[in-house]
């Protein structure tokens, strides 16, 4: 006696919307402060059409508009499916004449409406401002992509609710599904950075594209709105506005449609007697035990080991202890009992620990040859080498030169591995070399090595690379230093006017060209820098907005200089105005051109007037 039923029950949707409207209200308020309010503010403070356009795009592309949906989606899903975590409500709702498909669909739709409605309303309220700025064509794509992000996170939140028997567990699942891959890789990288030859820098590389199975990390890192800020007319700028990461977003949406069907299937199979338990499905339990044993065990062992120099045997012992402890702790939570030490559980725990240990032994022994990997120059869009200066090269020939130094280091692996931790040996100073390779697919490979400064076979080719005048100039003054209008500075506690600052800049560039300054590692005479003084020049420059920030390694580090990120600058200052830049460098007694300028300006009488560096340090400390 089965009657034909509709997909959902309107009364459930209506009731959910009536009951849980505060979720919408809260999200609505957040969106109003993220969109219409700042948009209105732009028009109050600016009447420059292009500037307004830039600001509108910067507001529409703010990462908060992707991050907040992560929370809003959880809010919508958790309120509408919260009955699954209470025996009283779960039992009663499932005793009503509604089948599970209808229940799931009704709650799914109502949760989605609760969070999508504020998004749509916020877009409608914001639309007049966006249209006024001349960016009407952005409204619909912006709304659709925002809704797509919301949908992706919402589906993950619903799946978390279906899989969990307890609200807290659902929250943990949601966080896990959003961050799992990233966290796991982070743990392995943390291990590798402490143990692998040349992998010390691996932890710092945060390319979100690698974490495709961690949607919150991937989407916030890859998806966004961008434009060509060098366009000079409003029309050209409006045409240049585009979304990046659309294809992954569409793929995510398609996958999430399938996940919705999976969630429905699981919902129909869900046993209501698992309410208040951590997982609603038996198959989740071993997964939880193993993942937490791996995650907690590794994190705890690394946390303790990172306090000193990592010893692999000690790490392994700690890993085994913490993995076992977390394995049994999870089992206690799952079973809600301290009596968990059964033969089967103990065998499983042992197996888990063996597998986790094996993984780290494989990583430790570099079974997959990770440490020997150098990318093919044809795969790369840029390569960077950081030591005394930052070397960034985009031409294949130059990239090969950087790779040659890297290859030399790998050839000396046997001698260099003992310096891997950065600890001093026999009082010989170590130089840290960081290699960064940007692949054309956007991924980044990073390696870092400590080299003793007396290892001539590596240091000499490095010095050759570093002592390129234009390279050092780019490093000190920025890649667009010719566009800088120097307006002030100081030297030897004296302020410089614009004319002198400009003259010092030109003279110092000439000193660089003439090889009067040596940027070298290791082979420097000990007192080379002793007779030098510190100079600061400040000026103004139009930003180099054409630089894609994820293509140039180290760009973020040079925010204060001409390498800066357009997104960061504009979100801070509102409009793409000219930026202040600052260059800091040492003038040595060899800098004949600069010394001449300083003499002409009456700052020094002879080269000897340059303060020894030691004395200057003493003054600073004093």
């Amino acid at each position, binding site marked *: *006696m*089965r009657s034909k039923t509709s997909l959902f029950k309107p009364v459930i949707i209506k009731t959910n919307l009536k009951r849980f409207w505060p979720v919408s209200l809260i999200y609505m308020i957040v969106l109003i402060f993220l969109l219409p309010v700042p948009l209105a503010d732009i028009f109050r403070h600016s009447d420059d059409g292009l500037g307004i356009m830039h600001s509108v795009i910067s507001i529409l592309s703010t990462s908060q508009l992707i991050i907040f949906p992560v929370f809003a989606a959880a809010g919508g899903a958790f309120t509408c499916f919260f009955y699954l975590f209470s025996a009283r409500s779960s039992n009663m709702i499932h005793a009503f004449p509604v089948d599970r498909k209808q229940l799931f669909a009704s709650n799914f739709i109502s949760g989605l409406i609760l969070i999508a409605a504020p998004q749509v309303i916020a877009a409608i309220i914001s639309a007049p401002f966006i249209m006024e700025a001349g960016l009407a064509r952005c409204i619909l794509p912006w709304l659709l992509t925002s809704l797509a992000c919301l949908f992706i996170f919402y589906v993950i939140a619903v799946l978390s609710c279906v899989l969990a028997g307890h609200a807290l567990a659902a929250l943990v699942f949601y966080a896990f599904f959003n961050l799992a891959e990233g966290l796991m890789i982070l743990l392995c990288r943390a291990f590798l950075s402490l143990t692998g030859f040349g992998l010390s820098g691996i932890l710092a590389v945060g390319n979100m594209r690698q974490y495709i199975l961690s949607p919150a990390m991937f989407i916030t890192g890859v998806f966004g709105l961008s434009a060509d800020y060098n366009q000079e007319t409003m029309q050209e700028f409006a045409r240049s506005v585009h979304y990046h990461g659309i294809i992954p977003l569409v793929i995510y949406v398609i996958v999430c449609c399938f996940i919705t069907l999976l969630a429905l299937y699981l919902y129909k199979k869900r046993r*209501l007697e698992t309410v208040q338990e951590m997982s609603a499905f038996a198959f989740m339990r071993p997964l939880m035990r193993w993942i937490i044993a791996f995650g907690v065990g590794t994190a705890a062992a690394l946390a303790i080991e990172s306090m000193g120099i990592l010893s692999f045997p000690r790490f392994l012992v700690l890993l085994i202890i913490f993995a076992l402890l977390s394995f049994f702790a999870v089992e206690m939570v799952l079973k809600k009992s301290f009596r968990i030490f059964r033969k089967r559980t103990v065998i499983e725990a042992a197996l888990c620990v063996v597998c986790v240990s094996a993984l780290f032994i494989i990583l430790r022994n570099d079974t997959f040859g990770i440490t020997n990997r150098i990318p093919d120059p044809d795969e790369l869009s840029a390569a960077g080498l950081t030591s005394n200066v930052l070397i960034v090269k985009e031409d294949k020939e130059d990239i090969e030169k950087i790779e040659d130094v890297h290859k030399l280091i790998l050839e000396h692996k046997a001698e260099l591995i003992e310096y891997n931790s950065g600890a001093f040996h026999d009082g010989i100073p170590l130089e840290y070399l960081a290699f960064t390779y940007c692949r054309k697919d956007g991924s980044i490979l990073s390696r870092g090595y400590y080299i003793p400064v007396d290892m001539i076979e590596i240091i000499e080719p490095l010095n050759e690379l570093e002592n390129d005048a234009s390279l050092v100039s780019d490093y000190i003054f920025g890649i667009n230093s010719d566009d800088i209008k120097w307006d002030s500075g100081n030297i030897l506690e004296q302020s410089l006017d614009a004319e002198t600052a400009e003259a010092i800049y030109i003279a110092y560039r000439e000193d660089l060209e003439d090889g009067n300054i040596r940027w070298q590692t290791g082979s420097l005479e000990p007192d080379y820098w002793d007779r030098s003084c510190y100079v600061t020049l400040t000026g103004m420059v139009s930003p180099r907005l054409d630089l894609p920030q994820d293509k140039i390694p180290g760009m973020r580090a040079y925010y204060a200089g001409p390498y800066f990120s357009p997104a960061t600058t504009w979100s801070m200052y509102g409009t793409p105005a000219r930026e202040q830049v600052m260059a800091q460098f040492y003038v040595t007694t060899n800098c004949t051109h600069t010394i001449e300028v300083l003499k002409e300006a009456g700052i020094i009488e002879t080269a000897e007037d340059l303060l020894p560096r030691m004395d200057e340090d003493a003054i600073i400390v004093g």
Partner: protein
Amino acid sequence: MIKINKLSKSFDGHVVLNDLDMHVPKGAVYGLVGPNGAGKSTLMRLVTGIYRPDNGSIKIDGSDPYENAAVKERFAYIPDELFYHVQDNTEDLKKYYAGLYPGFDHALYEKLKEVFSSIDTKQPIRRLSKGMKKQVIFWLSICCRPELMILDEPVDGLDPVMRRQIWSILLSDVAESGMTVLVSSHNLRELEDVCDHVGILHKGKLMIEHSLSDLQSNIMKIQVAYANDAPDFHGILDVLHEKTSGRVKELIVRGDQETVRRKLTATNPLFTDMLPLTLEEIFIYEMGGADYEIKDIFI
């Protein structure tokens, strides 16, 4: 109305119901009794389609209630722990019930307002007393016009007047429309007043299932005295309990009244007196036979 066949259910290896058979006739008021942990609430949740049986079958008028909205439309379930949303008032909950049960009787709802006049339908249910909350759920469930009412500890928290009132409404529905009631309760005195069938559940099995009249005529209390020593009744009768007070023996005996009387007369007693047992007494003595008896503990 309800036919349960070889029903089993266990949780994490703990068997709660084991090969249970049960039959609730149409139009019956079936009282399900049993000690704590006997599996009554689990059985109710299986009958209402909340849980899926591990083994066996449950049929409500020939259909499985699990994932069957059409069957669920025909019954109303009042659990021991009530469900409502914190913001809901009676009117909101009525709209919810009306949206879920196609047969919801709005006229009856208005009519019963007189009976439940103490309830402010605009007040949030969470602010009502426990008894009043129960009244609201009864009110709405009755208005669903169910063919089967499944009640788990239904009148717990209700005052005596309201208990009577609610039973009166339910029983008049039983009489008028042939509604079936399956009720689980520990209040055996009350069940005795309203039930016509009783099932005693113990350790996951239905120990006894009879109409109340059969049950009461099948177990009796006998007071008997003899001029000399009393015979050993265990060889003659199915004795559940035996107590001696002077020359008077008090026996709780199971069996057909006439047969018991005939066997007893054959032992030449000085006098015999046969008394009916209350449901509570039947429960206690039957449970005693199943190793669930009142222990004399001296502290």
